[in-house]
């Protein structure tokens, strides 16, 4: 190169010689993909209990419905990783230890359950979340829907007539309830607090989702669960308790039935109890080595905009990472698919000294009773504007007093969600009449006024 001696070199950080990514969900996969795409040539290892990285959202949707097989969850085949010199290990990391990886470099030693150890200059946690398990007698036996084996078990258990009780008002439980109803199960959804998932969809959107549940025969029960007791199948106890379900015979092959009792004394029997009371960050590896984590119930590794934790050489991406405000306080968690993917893209860019991207309004989706539900921005604030057409409710918009769009929930209307996203990013007052008018197409909503 014809560089002038003494000319200042561009201040690009030297990328670490080796990177270990712990977790193979959307964030872990995106990170290794983006690192190689952006030219990283160092050693790259990805470790996940399931081995090859898999997508997660279908576990409570298409996979549970039986519309998607387990191989379709894979982002890529093994050969793709081999071609890019990404080492994929099936295993569970039990703990990390800070070490010297070379004379002038510090790093981490990863200790796997199998006894294997891996050295890396930089470790990235992409361990996601894990289900909350409230301390209630009997709930420790309940099933959860978190990983592939959970989803495979539940898919096989959801035969017509099976009595399923979903405990908790979270997104995954609501999706599972919808799939179960579609498959002919007799579904009870116990939601302690109010229209399920109000924080994610806003009160109006959540109320509509709950009415969809009821229309499709999901028995939504408001109340606080007091106990879950195992009942041997076919005993007098089961007969006395009775069931809200018609024809609710226990399917063969279930692990016995459970008697659920609310604080107000109501009780019923279920063949399958699915605990879906929300999730918390799986941040134990970071806590153990002293990285700062969010002090609230969700937790999460506190990171800067790029994904750096408070410890050198330890980063976090995806649901386990928790962004920080300028003062250092944790930002509200937004544990959704696209946010996780974006965080991994931003981390890959920062690790290689490349600029990150501007991100606009956030987005996530859910599938309910055959409808594709999308949320952009913040649907919990502002005034509600509804958009309905001959098919029913299409959109619920949250509009600020100055007319700026803050958030939206759309029902089976992809273009409306995309239009709302662009209007939110634009930050200019919107025509509320046009938002509410189904005759004005989504595309016309974003067209500049003439």
């Amino acid at each position, binding site marked *: 190169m014809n560089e002038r001696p003494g000319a200042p070199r561009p201040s690009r950080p030297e990328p670490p010689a080796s990177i270990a990514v712990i977790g193979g969900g*959307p964030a872990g996969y*995106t990170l290794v993909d983006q690192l190689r795409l952006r030219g990283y040539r160092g050693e790259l290892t990805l470790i996940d209990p399931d081995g090859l990285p898999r*997508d997660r*959202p279908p576990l409570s949707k*298409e996979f549970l419905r039986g519309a*998607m097989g387990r191989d379709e969850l894979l*982002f*890529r085949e093994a050969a793709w990783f081999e071609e890019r010199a990404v080492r994929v290990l099936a295993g569970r990391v039990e703990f990390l230890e800070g070490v010297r990886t070379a004379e002038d470099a510090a790093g981490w030693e990863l200790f796997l359950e199998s006894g294997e150890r891996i050295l890396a200059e930089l470790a990235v946690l992409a361990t996601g979340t894990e289900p909350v398990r409230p301390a209630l007698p009997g709930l420790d036996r309940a099933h959860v829907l978190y990983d592939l084996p959970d989803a495979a078990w539940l898919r096989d258990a959801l035969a017509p007539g099976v009595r399923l009780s979903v405990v908790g008002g979270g997104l995954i439980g609501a999706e599972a309830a919808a799939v179960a109803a579609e498959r002919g199960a007799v579904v009870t959804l116990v939601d302690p607090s109010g229209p399920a998932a109000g924080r994610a969809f806003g009160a109006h959107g959540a109320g509509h989702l709950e009415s969809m549940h009821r229309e499709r025969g999901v028995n939504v029960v408001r109340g606080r669960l007091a106990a879950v007791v195992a009942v041997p199948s076919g005993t007098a106890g089961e007969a006395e308790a009775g069931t809200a379900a018609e024809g609710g015979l226990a399917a063969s092959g279930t692990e016995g039935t459970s008697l659920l009792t609310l604080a107000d004394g109501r009780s019923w029997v279920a063949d399958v109890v699915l605990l879906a009371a929300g999730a918390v960050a799986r941040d134990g590896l970071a806590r153990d080595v002293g990285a700062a984590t969010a002090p609230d119930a969700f937790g999460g590794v506190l990171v800067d905009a790029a994904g750096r934790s408070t410890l050198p050489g330890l980063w976090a991406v995806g649901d386990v990472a928790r962004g920080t405000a300028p003062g250092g306080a944790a930002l509200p968690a937004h544990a959704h*698919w*696209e946010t996780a*993917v974006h965080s991994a893209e931003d981390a890959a860019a920062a690790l290689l000294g490349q600029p990150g991207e501007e991100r606009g309004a956030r*987005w996530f*989706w859910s599938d309910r009773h055959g409808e*594709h539900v999308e949320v952009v921005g913040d649907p919990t604030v502002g005034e509600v504007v509804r958009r309905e057409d001959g098919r029913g409710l299409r959109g619920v918009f949250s509009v600020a007093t100055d007319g700026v769009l803050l958030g939206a929930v759309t029902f089976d209307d*992809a*273009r409306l969600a*995309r*239009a709302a996203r662009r209007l939110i990013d634009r930050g200019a007052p919107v025509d509320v009449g046009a938002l509410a008018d189904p005759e004005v197409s989504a*595309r016309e909503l974003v067209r500049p006024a003439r």
Partner: protein
Amino acid sequence: MSQIVDVAGVGDIPEGEAVVVAGEDNETGRDIAVFHAEDGNFYALDDECTHETASLAEGWIEGDRVECPLHATEFCLRTGKVLCLPATQDARTHVVEVADGRVLLHPGEPVDGAARP
């Protein structure tokens, strides 16, 4: 080589919209979406997203991209290249020409330099 399909008049597909030529009408056996992009040009891709069952014709068309209506994977209309997750497979392209005010689709004929899924 399949028969050329006369899809529509140039003015019949507004910018930012797409129409579907059904598989039985185009001899490839797969539905093909013909897009009128914001650059004024017409492009064609297999209509079904390479990720799951969704019609790209119902997606959001902006610049030279279409965004899948289900999970927001973006495809390049010119090359069929997949630009972001969750899809990882490129989409099949088909040549479209405009002649005498008509939009003509060449089913099964990939665009030069396009991604080869």
